[in-house]
């Protein structure tokens, strides 16, 4: 039974291996098709597994498929195996599904890049790692995937390594994630010290042995890991910079899949979280603050991808708000819908950038809806979904979260609603700036010269590489991409529009909740509220979205303005990067320099060389005694004899 589950991670791995072996021979677009079919088949396998799982009882839907013993030392043993249950399969389905679409899209987007095959090598490796992350049956296997996706993220963000900004961004992503991993690792140590195993089943079935303190510690340490991977305060700083990577990467890794790993992890350990109200509160508060914070920053960004990046941070904040409120299903639901619409938005943005020859500054866009109709329509669907306009997917998932948040604390709910308003505003701003208004791209400076926000801009070189050919430098009319790029847009747009169907809050149609419930069990909190109450809250959320859109409409369409409320402090993301630089980077560098130049070179090695010099100097002094005069030598002998005689006489006298 369910042996097909093995294929889910195996296929992308096989794709990776094949592409590595083929190297450059795989070619363009051959490598892309290999990779795409690998992950496409993985999606198919996931779907088959899903069907097979449906054939079982709710309780029996958690199946461990062992693979081999990975590590064993003394009492520590890690069996590598796949944990196929409702949660992991849900993740696998949307990871492979969205992944397939983005792979497909990449074939068009990356066309002509000199490292085209390598890109798909990385993508397949990423897909494999992500699937290991979600399907792993123990903390350590999840960690394997967790670090694997981090490494792939590093490789893909710095894919265009010729640009220093891309290289730095990749490094930053990895290092900041490592800070989070620090928490994850400590959590694993604590889990092992407590349970003697790292298996999910071994741990989660015995959480009752945990004391409250240990539970809080484990939960918070894991949350630190999640903060790193899912770009929550205070570790969010890498995600905006990660937009230096090719846009499909942003869509796949930094919107749809990898960044949601933190949420997945929290959902996975829900039985532990359930033991610690403090941890839940911390998670909820951090989530809410991140959501609000990132939304404010998103309002002031000019780079089309950075807006989406901060939006992603903000939406992830929502998911953590849900987790903190005990609404795991809502978190997963939002994760899925967010994967649909945010991937869509990124791919749309990529399409725009592609069409404008790597122009990313929204101030130099406008009126593109006529020239890029497919992109425009799908992007608008994405916009409506993320803004929370009924009946698009985002509305339903966000509504679930806000409901749970209200149950946790009205204050959190308030923050959530304000964030929803901001979300609607900044997304509307983006849509209006890009697709409406005047054709500002006609008089735009050379692409990349005007770096928006953090300075994300492709260099001119890539403009040549990634150009679809047939047209020269800028000045050409923006154009739609090939079908491999538009098809994913259309599919994702339909999902973004209809994704809400997964978990409609009406009666028996809450399929996702029903499906996932056995995973969370008692950890899952059900909101006990009247339906009138629920409807009022939903109306408030929907209203906030509409207000946000209306404000943006007033400013950018009615007011025909291209700038609104964009204070520098928000453009610089509240100066957090600068703060880290001042508080950590510079003192750290100073400390390291001190350690290397003073402690190591002067103190320690100085002592070592000092001993050598001392011996030398001692020898230099001593040799002066050796004057060359024979009577001095005789004096030496006589002196020695006298001392010896003195000693023995003293001894004899004593």
């Amino acid at each position, binding site marked *: *039974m*369910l*042996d097909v589950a093995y294929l889910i991670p195996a296929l992308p791995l096989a794709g990776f291996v094949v592409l590595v072996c083929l190297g450059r021979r795989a070619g363009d677009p051959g490598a892309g098709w290999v990779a795409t079919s690998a992950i496409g088949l993985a999606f198919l396998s996931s779907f088959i597994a899903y069907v097979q799982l449906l054939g079982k009882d709710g309780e029996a839907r958690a199946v*461990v*498929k*062992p693979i081999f*013993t990975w*590590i*064993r*030392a*003394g*009492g*520590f*043993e890690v069996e590598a195996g796949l944990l196929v249950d409702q949660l992991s399969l849900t993740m696998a389905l949307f990871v492979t599904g969205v992944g397939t679409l983005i792979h497909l899209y990449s074939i068009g987007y990356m066309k002509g890049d000199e*490292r085209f095959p390598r890109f798909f090598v990385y993508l397949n490796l990423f897909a494999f790692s992500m699937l290991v992350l979600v399907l792993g049956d123990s903390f*350590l296997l999840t960690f*394997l995937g967790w*670090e*694997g996706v981090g*490494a792939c993220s*590093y*490789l893909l963000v*710095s894919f265009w*390594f*010729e*640009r*220093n900004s*891309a*290289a*730095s961004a*990749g*490094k930053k992503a990895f*290092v900041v994630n*490592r800070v989070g991993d*620090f928490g994850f*690792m*400590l959590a*694993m*140590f*604590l889990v*092992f*010290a407590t*349970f*003697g*195993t790292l*298996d999910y*089943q*071994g741990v989660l079935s015995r959480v009752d042995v945990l004391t409250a303190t240990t539970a809080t510690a484990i939960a918070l340490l894991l949350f630190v890991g999640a903060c790193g991977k899912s770009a929550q305060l205070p570790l969010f700083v890498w995600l905006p910079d990660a937009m230096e990577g090719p846009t499909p990467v942003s869509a796949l890794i930094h919107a749809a899949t990898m960044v949601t790993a933190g949420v997945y992890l929290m959902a996975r350990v829900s039985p532990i979280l359930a033991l610690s109200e403090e941890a839940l509160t911390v998670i909820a508060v951090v989530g809410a603050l991140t959501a609000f914070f990132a939304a404010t920053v998103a309002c002031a960004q000019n780079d089309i991808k950075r807006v989406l990046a901060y939006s992603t941070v903000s939406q992830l904040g929502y998911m953590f708000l849900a987790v903190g409120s005990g609404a795991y299903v809502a978190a997963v639901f939002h994760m899925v819908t967010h994967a649909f619409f945010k991937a869509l938005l990124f791919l749309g943005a990529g399409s725009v950038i592609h069409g404008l020859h790597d122009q990313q500054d929204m101030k130099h866009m406008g009126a593109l809806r006529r020239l890029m109709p497919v992109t425009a329509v799908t992007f608008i669907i994405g916009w409506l979904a993320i803004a929370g306009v009924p009946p698009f997917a985002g509305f339903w998932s966000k509504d679930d979260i806000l409901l749970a948040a209200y149950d946790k604390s009205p204050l959190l709910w308030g923050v959530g609603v304000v964030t929803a308003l901001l979300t609607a505003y900044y997304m509307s701003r983006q849509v209006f700036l890009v697709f409406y208004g005047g054709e500002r791209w006609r008089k735009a400076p050379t692409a990349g010269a005007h770096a928006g926000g953090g300075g994300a801009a492709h260099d001119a070189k890539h403009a040549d590489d990634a150009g679809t050919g047939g047209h020269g430098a800028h000045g050409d009319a923006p154009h739609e991409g090939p079908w491999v790029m538009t098809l994913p847009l259309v599919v994702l747009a339909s999902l973004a529009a209809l994704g809400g169907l997964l978990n409609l809050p009406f009666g028996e149609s809450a399929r996702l909740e029903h499906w996932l419930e056995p995973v969370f069990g008692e950890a899952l909190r059900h909101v006990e509220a009247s339906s009138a109450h629920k409807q009022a809250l939903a109306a408030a959320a929907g209203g906030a979205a509409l207000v946000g859109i209306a404000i943006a409409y007033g400013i950018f369409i009615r007011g025909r303005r291209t700038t609104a409320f964009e204070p520098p402090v928000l453009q610089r993301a509240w100066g957090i990067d600068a703060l880290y630089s001042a508080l950590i980077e510079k003192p*750290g*560098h100073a*400390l*390291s320099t001190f*350690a*290397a*130049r003073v*402690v*190591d070179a002067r103190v*320690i*090695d100085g002592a*070592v060389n000092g001993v050598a010099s001392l011996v030398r100097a001692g020898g230099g002094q001593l040799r002066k005694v050796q004057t060359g005069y024979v009577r001095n030598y005789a004096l030496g002998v006589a002196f020695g004899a006298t001392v010896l005689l003195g000693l023995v006489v003293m001894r004899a006298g004593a």
Partner: protein
Amino acid sequence: MGVGSDFPILSTIVAVPVLAAVVVALLPRSRPDLIRNVGLAASLAVGVLTVVLAIDFEAGVPGYQFVSEHRWIEDFGISWILGVDGISLFLVVLSGVLFPIALYGPKVHKDLKSYVAWMLVLEAGCIGSFLSLDLFLFFLFFEITLVPMYFIIGGWGYENRVYASVKFFLYTLFGSAFMLVGMLALVYLSAKGRAPVTFDIRELADRGAVAGNTARWIFLAFVAAFAVKVPLFPVHTWLPDAHTEAPTAGSVILAGVLLKLGTYGIVRFGLTLFPQAAVDLAPLLLTLAVIGIIYGALVATVQKDLKRLVAYSSVAHLGFIVLGTFAFTNQGLSGSVLQMVNHGLSTGALFLLVGMIYERRHTRQIAELNGLQKSMPLLAAVFTVVMLSSIGLPGLNGFVGEFLILIGTFVTHRWWAVVATVGVILAALYLLWAYQRVFHGTPTGDNVGLPDMTRREKTVMAPLVVLIVFLGVYPKPVLDRIDPSVDRLIDHVESRTDYRQPPVAADLGRNVRAAERGIAAQRAAREAEGHQDAGEDHGGAGEGGGEGEHGRVDE
């Protein structure tokens, strides 16, 4: 491919390189090809023998295997005793693998004959140290490695090679001075009464004649020698100089094998001979190890010379190994032993790669390099893999050891483990930053248009990359051989001291697994077909583990 039980494989492994060195020394200088081939053939032969050894090694046996014992200097109670157990096995294999690579890989620009001869002597010395079960014999091998390495650094190194080689020699000799005195003190104190003088560590460990303060002092004397070799903070400053100035092969062997003599020595002699003292002084060594981890990483961050950076990264990595050793848990110790091998592979590979860059650019200064990935994508890719292994990325070898060390330390010395984990962050920082500066960006000046890896370079790197991946994905065959010996060592420590390994590290974990297996078995009843092969696997593992564990509990 088994060998006869009476074939003295260990003595052969030690003797072959020595004989080959003599042969090379007798060959005419005018036949460089012949010299190279003889050297390579000998080291490959040793490599094959070590692999045969690993295959013939019985995984479940904790004690020494293939023991060959001959009387040597009877008047001193010294014998030629070679033996291998799980702790030394893979270090021997590592040496067997790294030496042919180091001999074949980097080009030698002058006096090939002496170079090959010294390398072969070095190989014999290193392997001999790992195999010796006689304290005196170990010391001989331990010391003799200095000579070839000294000549290799001094003869084929870079600008500052003389300073570096002399520093290396004297520093190590300084540590050994303490060890020699400590060793003699131990031997003679153990021979009080009617017991004959012996240097056989098995016998010495059994007698356990020294205790209390005496044991602590002697232990410290041993540690002084090993700490220099490891090198442990603050006696590490010879390492950056030696590494930087050594020729590529020298750095590879130095990092890959020679440093392990220190960590191996601590495990084999420190823990075996002075269990109580080791337990007593563990906090000191743990602290030094942790300082080394953080300090090495910090200092590595600001290095301007690529080789020096890798050298300081070794200080940090070796800190982990010492940390795991003094955790006194099965995981920590197994992790340490495994990490010795891992570090040898990944740092050896890093030095080879840096050497390849140097061959092309004639500089190691990070500031003078940029954008190398542009013209050398393959080299960059290999570098990335090795770097990620060094960072400790799961799925590559570095992680398994590091993780075992940390988790093993955590259960006994929580806060040390926590601080050491910070080192994991820093490792990423300095290596990625260096990678960015060297490989990323747009190449300028001399960095444009460099040739990518040659066939020879690929041949050299291929086995290392394969091992890096293999040990990351499937370390079990290695751990299965390490584990029983580590178990025995911890047993030994526990039987001589009040120290008890936390149950979670010893067997609680396995009990949990067993319980789970029970559940799994019930499920398997329902899903008979899918579970069959996995069940077999579990059963085998349970037996192997059970024997080793429960012997101790009864004591």
